[in-house]
């Protein structure tokens, strides 16, 4: 081992506008589309699973099976078809989010109290309008909890996409750091990835508060909804939730 300090601040200063910024931007471009795409797919799947119960077990098992496929393998398998386009990363990462998001959409819709549903029906809301204007908004806290877990997981998994040469902070770690036996870019890559995950998480919390003004100031109540939201924000893919 060399005598050099573990972190070379000079390198970081020199590369801040260069390779570090480039890789960070690539990381952003590779992480947000899969999260959005995953949500777009998970919403109809979750709505269908909540409405028609027999749909749920096969959908959930399918999503869980996909989740078990190693990401590296999916990147390798897709690469010949999608080449060096972002889709090579976006498709697998979006598929992975389903295992987290679909159960949350289903739980979110299922925890809408019956009296709320009946009130909407009594006001003359049809099924579609009730879903869009009452049930989905009421499900936002639980869906948002799942979205937070999914985005943190996605942002950390994007690094693996660098193995197939798609850029992102993983590239900083592998090319700049590992291949040159130089720890500084590795540490910078890890910390930036964590920072990005935390910032995204924080932004989602703010977004959820803004979208669901009625949950503000009800912290003390600790009703079932928030309890459930907290529990499902905890583990990825938790089907059993909290009693």
């Amino acid at each position, binding site marked *: 081992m060399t005598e050099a300090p573990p972190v070379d601040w000079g390198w970081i200063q020199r590369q801040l506008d260069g390779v570090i910024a480039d890789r960070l931007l690539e990381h952003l471009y590779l992480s947000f589309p899969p999260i959005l795409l995953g949500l777009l797919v998970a919403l109809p799947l979750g709505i269908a699973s909540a409405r028609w119960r027999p749909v*749920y*077990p096969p959908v*959930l*098992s399918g999503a*869980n*099976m996909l*989740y*078990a*496929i*190693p*990401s*590296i*393998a*999916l990147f*390798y*398998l897709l690469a*010949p078809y999608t080449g060096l386009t972002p889709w090579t990363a976006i498709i697998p990462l979006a598929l992975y989010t389903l295992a987290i998001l679909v159960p949350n959409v289903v739980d979110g819709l299922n925890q809408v109290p019956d009296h709320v549903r009946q009130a909407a029906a009594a006001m003359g809301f049809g099924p579609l309008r009730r879903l869009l204007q009452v049930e989905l908004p009421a499900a936002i806290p639980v869906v948002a909890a799942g979205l937070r877990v999914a985005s*943190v*997981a996605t*942002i*950390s*998994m*994007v*690094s*693996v996409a*660098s*193995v197939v040469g798609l850029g992102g*902070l*993983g590239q900083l*770690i*592998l090319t700049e*750091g*590992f291949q040159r*036996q130089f*720890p500084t870019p*590795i*540490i910078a*890559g*890890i910390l930036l*990835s*964590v920072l990005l*995950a*935390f910032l995204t*998480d924080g932004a989602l919390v703010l977004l959820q508060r803004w979208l669901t003004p009625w949950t503000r100031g009800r912290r003390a109540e600790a009703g079932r909804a928030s309890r459930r939201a*907290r*529990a499902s924000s*905890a*583990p*990825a*893919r*938790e*089907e*059993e*939730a*909290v*009693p």
Partner: protein
Amino acid sequence: MNVVLWILEWFGRPEQWTGTSGIPARFLEHVLYSGLALLLSAAIAVPVGLVTGHTGRGGFLAATLANFARALPTIGVLMLVVLVLGIGLAPVMAALVALAVPPILVNTYEGVRGVDPQLRDAAEGMGMRGREVLLRLETPIALPLILVGLRTAAIQVVSTATIAAFVGLGGLGRFIVDGRARQDFPMILGGSLLVVLLALIVIVLFALLRRVLVARGLRRRAAAPI
């Protein structure tokens, strides 16, 4: 349908089934890496989750640490530890433990926190002390959730243990990494299918564990799909 034929052909090659680079040997290696990582993670996360859940202290710190660990990029942890300690099992274990600790820790904590306070009062009324309350009341009640955490961790570990092949170790990742190097598609597919198979075995194993370990009165509450 030629994908299916490819895979069948790959599994049918006789050399797959013998020797140190055959399917049985690689499968066993994968099981060993995953099992060791899961044991290490459980040894860290279960006691910490139980104690923080029981005392209610340090819960925020534990949750923050778990979030931090969850946000760590696996490749980064792997490569950093390789640079510091060299090639071997340690970097793989570091990366896998960082991945497995959060779900176990958070589920254990939530499991213990979620115990009905009336039950806790009843246990204290029966003369149980802190440690007894934790071990004889809270742990059994939290067990279903602890098992969920362990299972989530196990599936992620099994899927991610493929990275061992990146640092020259064995396991099912070898088929994926070597398959890529040789442009051997069926090999990558076959290796991935074996990983999925192992994940399915994990799911079945945890369903059995749940049946054996969780008290009957607690089992009814949540019938887990798969």
